[in-house]
């Protein structure tokens, strides 16, 4: 791994503020080819907002960001997106191949009549993620994990320069989580496409993440997982003593401010499930 790899994302002095509420300030980083960046943090700390900034759908309150050397809005066509899994209606008139095809030319005007080249790219994208069998299956009849395979094919079919995934593991079982992570990991190793991966639970991506961006209330920390996911670093981030525990090779964070009360959502921070 040389330090010469090209920076695909260059973020400088980013600030996110809604009205009086400051979510983070002076956030800067380079994301280089082949890198896997995990974005962690409790609900409402601006993880999705960061993804939207990288897509040019949201303008940061301050600072600048370049994707492939261009403004995010202009680089959109070169970015692949894997969204959260959400159940398609069983009657959705879309087959596996149609979903992937939308990732290739769904943003273009016109009917998009059959094209040999496009069909071939869709076929290859399906094969690459092991979803060739879902080609003609209605997406609404596939399981969550099968849908996420298609989502990855959809994101990869346009041969993107950057991959953004916002909570793509939500409501997937462990085996499917592993599949999704492995597919993205393989892509960044083989094609050098950097990955920004937003997740509540750090454990599924611990094996593959090069760096972690931990967004906390009004602060952020960034670095190698072993440096950021420590009792000291997260206590500083939350401004209150928290403990980072290793339990059977999994990381659990306890004592965060949103960890109190009986009815809290237990995935509000890294690795509590």
């Amino acid at each position, binding site marked *: 791994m040389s330090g010469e790899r090209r920076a695909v994302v260059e973020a400088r002095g980013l600030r996110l503020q809604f009205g009086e509420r400051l979510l983070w300030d002076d956030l800067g980083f380079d994301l280089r080819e082949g890198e896997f960046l995990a974005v962690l943090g409790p609900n409402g700390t601006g993880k999705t907002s960061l993804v939207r900034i990288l897509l040019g759908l949201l303008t940061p309150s301050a600072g600048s960001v370049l994707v492939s050397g261009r403004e995010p809005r202009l680089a959109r066509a070169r970015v692949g997106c894997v969204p959260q899994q959400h159940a398609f209606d069983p009657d959705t*008139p879309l087959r596996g191949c*149609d979903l992937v095809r939308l*990732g290739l030319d769904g943003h273009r*005007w016109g009917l998009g009549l059959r094209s040999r080249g496009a069909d071939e790219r869709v076929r290859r994208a399906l094969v690459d993620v092991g979803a060739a069998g879902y080609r003609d299956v209605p997406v609404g009849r596939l399981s969550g994990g099968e849908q996420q395979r298609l989502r990855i094919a959809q994101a990869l079919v346009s041969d993107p320069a950057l991959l953004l995934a916002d909570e793509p593991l939500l409501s997937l079982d462990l085996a499917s989580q592993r599949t999704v992570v492995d597919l993205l990991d393989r892509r960044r190793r083989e094609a050098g496409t950097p990955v920004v991966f937003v997740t509540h639970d750090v454990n599924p991506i611990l094996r593959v993440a090069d760096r972690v961006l931990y967004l906390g209330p009004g602060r952020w920390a960034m670095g190698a997982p072993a440096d950021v996911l420590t009792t000291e670093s997260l206590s500083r981030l939350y401004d209150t003593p928290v403990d980072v525990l290793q339990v059977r090779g999994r990381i659990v964070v306890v004592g965060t401010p949103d960890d109190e009360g009986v009815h809290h959502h237990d995935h509000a921070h890294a690795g509590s499930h």
Partner: protein
Amino acid sequence: MFTELLGQHFVHTALLAGAVVAVVSGAIGTFVVTRGASFAVHAVSELGFTGAAGALVLGVDPVAGMIAGSLLVGGVLGLLSLRGRERDSAIGAVLAFGLGVGVLFLSLYQGYATEATNLLFGSIVGVSDRQLAVLAVVAVIVVAGIAAAYRPLLFSSIDPEVAEARGVPVRALSVLTFLLLALTTAEAIQVVGVLLVLTLVITPAAAAQRLTANPATAILLSIVIALVATEGGILLSLQQPWPTSFFISAISFAAYLGARMRPWSL
């Protein structure tokens, strides 16, 4: 008797008008159903009724009033691009008020009551040549709109999150969908009436989506079902003294039931 009727000019006009309306209704229906916006169709058509009733009071062409009313609500609904329960309740509120205003207009209207009944229940056999020409022009606009924006329309109605990330103007397309829907509704009202617009815009598309997951096939099937329903309905009503709208809705519903129970897939 029946064959005699088939030679009549007004029957030809009715069959042509029915075909035109079926094509646009069946086509736009697919996008409306995938957006889960069936209820919006009802709102758009009732506000079309209000517009038509207002036009009657003012003594202008009710079709123009209908198109204006539908376009206004369609535009607003598209702009709001609400989702889920919020959209349902917003539509319900707008619909109820619009209908109330329509009732007021009708009470102010001094003309023939049949005009109002025709709006509510349709009057396909009364379509004039001029009306048919307007129907055809509006239909060409709707079909051209759908064809020009087919891929992003499909993308944004089925998969809005990723579509937005890919740079698809989801909001503008939501407005476009509802404007095209408004035009379609104003067309369908003239055939089946305000109260039965759903039978051409929603039922065929819903049935088609049970039969195939191929989006292009779904649109074509939806058009075919709408065509069979309108033309079949018109022909049956020539033989029976029952209203055309009843036959149309019955055929359309039969197709839907059949699609729900089908043991095979396309």
